[in-house]
């Protein structure tokens, strides 16, 4: 085994110098000549028939090259936008084209595109386009959309119901019969608007005579986009190249094939010139998919001693105006709602509903934050009802270390974990007993401190190919190429497509340890379909568990070949060769070593190779692990709620996370900082609000409040390390853990703070006004 030096080292991210100095190239920075700019005219109506689009005045405007509507473009769509299985094979959904043909279903849906010589000219001309709508009644609310007499979005489906499916196991009736206490609770997962700092953008360049299309897109999934561009546009996949250059954040919002990727490509093919579209923030909040927007109704069966016997959750999901590509991925929440706990029965139901709103799809965590919020609120509700400390309720119900690998009621198997170790560490960090005493003291002074826990597990590393194919309709695996050059430097190509995660740094660390090549001599390339065989891209905290391990495996294959070459050069038997720190030598004689650099030279001076060996020092890996990975952790949040104003202040935030092996602990901490901030955003600040007519009321960052550094506490982070048994590095995932854990931790703390007022639940976000109202209903009478 190679001596691990780089894995575990917090070296600085090599991505940062170019990013913090503004010299990285995002889509909008790419040089292009003869550019055409695309402006998208978007529906101002939530639900309407398009009676006509008057474009003659716009066509006369300066700089305009073409104006195209859905009717013009319909014949060019070889297929509608893709929709994947994602846990719900039997669902109803309409054909969704990149641009509305005769009806619009949400504000922001594309209705026409303007192609002009400058962005300003395109926007000015767009103002001159008149769309004649016949307004139809709109519906934005899940329950109203499936009530009798509701306006139906897609007549061909008969109603707004897309699916109503069960996820059940165990005898739920028996669980409720055995229960001492039963609790019913409605939990709100408000609509969230993902705010990547870089909005989306696309540059499409179709070369007419070569019949080749190159698309640069601010996307998380260049490989998926390549396939679908080929299918929808009817171009050979071998003639399509998709590049994700610098991508300024995604959080799931750049995980689907988007209309603008198709529209710019079509426009470029029509005009024979490169076409660019850059989303602005006002478009972004309507045109890029939203997250969450679910209601969870749960019934809980528990015993007086805090044992949870079973739960019966119903997940109501607002799909928006169409079914997005991964629009049913959030149903994953049902599959993992059992959390870190044992129980006897689970009786789940998921119902998907169309409304006149921006479609929803994955947003950081995608199903897991919702599931974790559910089960972690369940634990606190049981604690409140039984009078047992929330810590003890969790301990009582935990899956134990000796139960691992543990199979849940719905048939998923956890890979590893002793959930008490992160909990104990977090409790020690906050001095839990002292905190509870402080809380009691403060209450006497009319100060309302609350302590909230979250002991989460999550599913990451999507995934092994067979279960992901069965559940989502896509086979997921990791890919890498490791190629050592003539001079002994190496290039690593990965199938993941980072957008802030630091893969260039961390995967170089992985390859460096295996090959003994200095980390700075290893370049990591990604996000370009032309450079590697294929990739499954980046989402769901999957990259390191898959592509990161694929890098390790490819590097091991290269090391294996290097041993063979070294044995030949040293005239020794391969079995006697030791490979350490980039040197190969015969066991016991390290002074007579050949270096990886010498081996590399020989690999290309092929006459020096053993008979029958091909040249080159390269390996490719498609890594398909045996299971998903299951990180876990314990987060504790301490808040104080101002009884006079309802304002929440986070006094402490402690997070102990176990994501297995940490390749670069600093990068892990960075993922946690951002993730926790985003989860706090959902708990305290963020809410996408529509009015009854389907107009977005939170259409700018003045009204849609994302947390900023000054609104957040200093996070206190710690780790336990339980290597995953399902991959060679022992890594799990960390991209979403912070978001998954922090929302319930904060909300449990707030509900705990308001306990003297008889408050058992607070609908997110916990705005000051809402908390003030809860504390002062009944004239502020305390329980």
């Amino acid at each position: 085994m190679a001596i691990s030096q780089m894995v575990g080292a917090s070296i600085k991210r090599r991505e940062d110098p170019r990013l913090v100095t503004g010299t990285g190239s995002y889509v909008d920075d790419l040089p292009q000549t003869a550019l055409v700019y695309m402006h998208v005219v978007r529906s101002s109506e939530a639900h309407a028939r398009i009676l006509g689009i008057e474009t003659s005045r716009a066509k006369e405007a300066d700089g305009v090259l073409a104006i195209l509507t859905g009717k013009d473009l319909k014949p060019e769509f070889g297929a509608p936008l893709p929709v994947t299985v994602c846990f719900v094979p039997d669902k109803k959904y309409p054909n969704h084209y990149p641009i509305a043909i005769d009806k619009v279903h949400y504000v922001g849906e594309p209705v026409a595109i303007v192609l002009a010589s400058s962005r300003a000219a395109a926007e000015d001309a767009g103002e001159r386009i008149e769309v004649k709508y016949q307004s139809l009644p709109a519906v934005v609310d899940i329950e109203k959309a499936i009530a009798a007499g509701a306006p139906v979005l897609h007549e061909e489906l008969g109603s707004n119901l897309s699916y109503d499916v069960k996820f059940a196991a165990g005898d739920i009736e028996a669980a409720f019969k055995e229960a001492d206490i039963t609790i019913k609770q409605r939990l709100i997962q408000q609509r969230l608007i993902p705010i990547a700092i870089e909005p989306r953008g696309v540059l499409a360049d179709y070369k007419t005579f070569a019949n080749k299309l190159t698309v640069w897109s601010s996307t998380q999934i260049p490989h998926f986009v390549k396939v679908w561009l080929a299918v929808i546009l009817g171009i050979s996949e071998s003639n399509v190249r998709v590049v994700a250059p610098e991508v300024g954040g995604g959080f799931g919002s750049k995980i689907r094939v988007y209309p603008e990727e198709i529209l710019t490509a079509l426009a470029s093919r029509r005009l024979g010139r490169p076409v660019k579209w850059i989303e602005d923030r006002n478009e972004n909040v309507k045109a890029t998919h939203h997250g969450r927007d679910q209601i969870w109704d749960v019934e809980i069966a528990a015993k007086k001693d805090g044992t949870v016997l079973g739960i019966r959750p119903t997940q109501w999901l607002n799909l928006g105006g169409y079914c997005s590509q991964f629009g049913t991925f959030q149903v994953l929440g049902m599959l993992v709602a059992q959390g870190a706990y044992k129980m006897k029965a689970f009786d789940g139901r998921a119902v998907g509903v169309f409304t006149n709103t921006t479609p929803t799809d994955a947003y950081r965590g995608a199903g897991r934050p919702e599931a974790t919020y559910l089960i972690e609120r369940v634990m606190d509700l049981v604690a409140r009802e039984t009078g047992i400390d929330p810590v003890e309720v969790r301990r009582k119900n935990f899956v134990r270390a000796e139960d691992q690998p543990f199979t849940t009621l719905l048939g998923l198997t956890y890979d590893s974990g002793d959930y008490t170790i992160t909990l104990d560490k977090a409790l020690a960090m906050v001095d839990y007993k002292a905190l509870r005493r402080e809380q009691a003291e403060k209450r006497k002074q009319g100060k309302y401190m609350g302590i909230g826990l979250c002991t989460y597990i999550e599913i990451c590393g999507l995934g092994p190919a067979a279960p992901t194919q069965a559940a989502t309709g896509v086979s997921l695996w990791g890919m890498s190429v490791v190629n050592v050059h003539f001079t002994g430097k190496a290039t690593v190509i990965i199938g993941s497509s980072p957008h802030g995660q630091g893969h260039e740094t961390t995967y170089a660390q992985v390859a460096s340890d295996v090959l003994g090549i200095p980390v700075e001599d290893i370049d990591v390339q990604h996000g370009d379909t032309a450079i590697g065989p294929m990739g499954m891209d980046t989402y769901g905290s999957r990259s390191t568990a898959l592509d990161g391990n694929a890098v390790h495996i490819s590097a091991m294959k290269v090391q294996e070949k290097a041993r063979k070459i070294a044995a030949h050069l040293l005239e020794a038997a391969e079995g006697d060769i030791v490979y350490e720190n980039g040197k190969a030598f015969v066991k016991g004689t390290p002074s007579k070593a050949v270096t990886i650099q010498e081996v590399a030279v020989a690999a290309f001076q092929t006459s020096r190779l053993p008979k029958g060996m091909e040249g080159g020092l390269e390996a490719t890996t498609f890594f398909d692990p045996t299971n998903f990975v299951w990180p876990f952790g314990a987060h504790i949040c301490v808040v104080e709620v101002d009884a006079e104003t309802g304002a929440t202040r986070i006094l402490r935030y402690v997070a102990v996370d176990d994501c297995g092996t940490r390749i670069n602990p600093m990068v892990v901490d960075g993922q946690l900082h951002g993730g926790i901030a985003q989860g706090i955003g959902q708990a305290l600040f963020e809410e996408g609000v529509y009015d009854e007519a389907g107009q977005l009321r939170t259409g700018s960052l003045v009204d849609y409040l994302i947390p900023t550094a000054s609104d957040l506490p200093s996070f206190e982070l710690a780790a336990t390390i339980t290597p995953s048994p399902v991959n060679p590095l022992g890594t799990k995932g960390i991209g979403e853990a912070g978001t998954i854990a922090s929302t319930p931790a904060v909300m449990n703390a707030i509900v705990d703070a308001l306990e003297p007022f008889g408050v058992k639940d607070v609908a997110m976000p916990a705005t000051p006004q809402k908390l003030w109202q809860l504390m002062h209903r009944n004239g502020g009478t305390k329980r």
Partner: protein
Amino acid sequence: MNPAAFDYVVPRTLPEAVAELVKHGQEAKVLAGGHSLIPLMKLRLSTPSFLVDIGRIGNLSYIREEDGHIAIGALTTHHDIEFSDLLKNKLRLLTSAASQIGDPQVRNRGTIGGAAAHADPNGDFPACLLALDAELKAVGPKGERTIAARDFFVDTFTTSLEPNEILREIRIATPPPGSKGTYLKFSRRSQDWAIVAVAAQVRVTGHEVTQVAIGLTGMGSRPVRASGVEQALRGKPGHDDELRAAAERAVDGTDPQQDLNGSPDYRRHLAQVLTRRALEQITAHH
């Protein structure tokens, strides 16, 4: 989006700027720091066809004391106000308010004249100027005139400035020794506009409140004076129970609006709480 097309001129003197405004009438808008106007133009909510950029007119950025008054040039940035030693010593209400506007980038560009002329009912300086009985000096084609703050703020985004007038200077009587001010702002996030804020300037002499001026942000379509509070407190010793009772009257004559951040009831409640806290803070060391 890009703003709609507009023409742009950069006059070097105030008379030149006024002449441009006269020439272009209602079509023209004055551009100072640009932190309110440019976002509105990029949303195409405001589509002036002519911008008069007064940013390069000399001698409009200053803070000085003269004749018992503090004079602040209209182009003085929030940052310069926040860090002014003169204001820290004599007019802490303004430094306190300035430090809570937006974020450092906004404070580096935004100007007090722009903030006053924009008259956002949730902006921070208008309530301060109203509480301080500021005088606003404006230059127009007929020369200069002085407008009292109480007459200046008319309605949401509306002042008594004529379209061809430019705000030149803000003058505030230097508060007497012992007079103290503070700005208490309540918002969801630190950088947001106020849901409600209280600008308070109070002087306690011996055992008597000899000066009390309270301006409220977010309690109507323009900044309002909490005259009920002022009446209740003026001439009183300023004991805790008096402060509390006086603060209750912060809602008198207010007409707060409903929005995503707060109902009228919640705003009224916040006005009372913040007023009491401001009064307690100022009188704490007496």
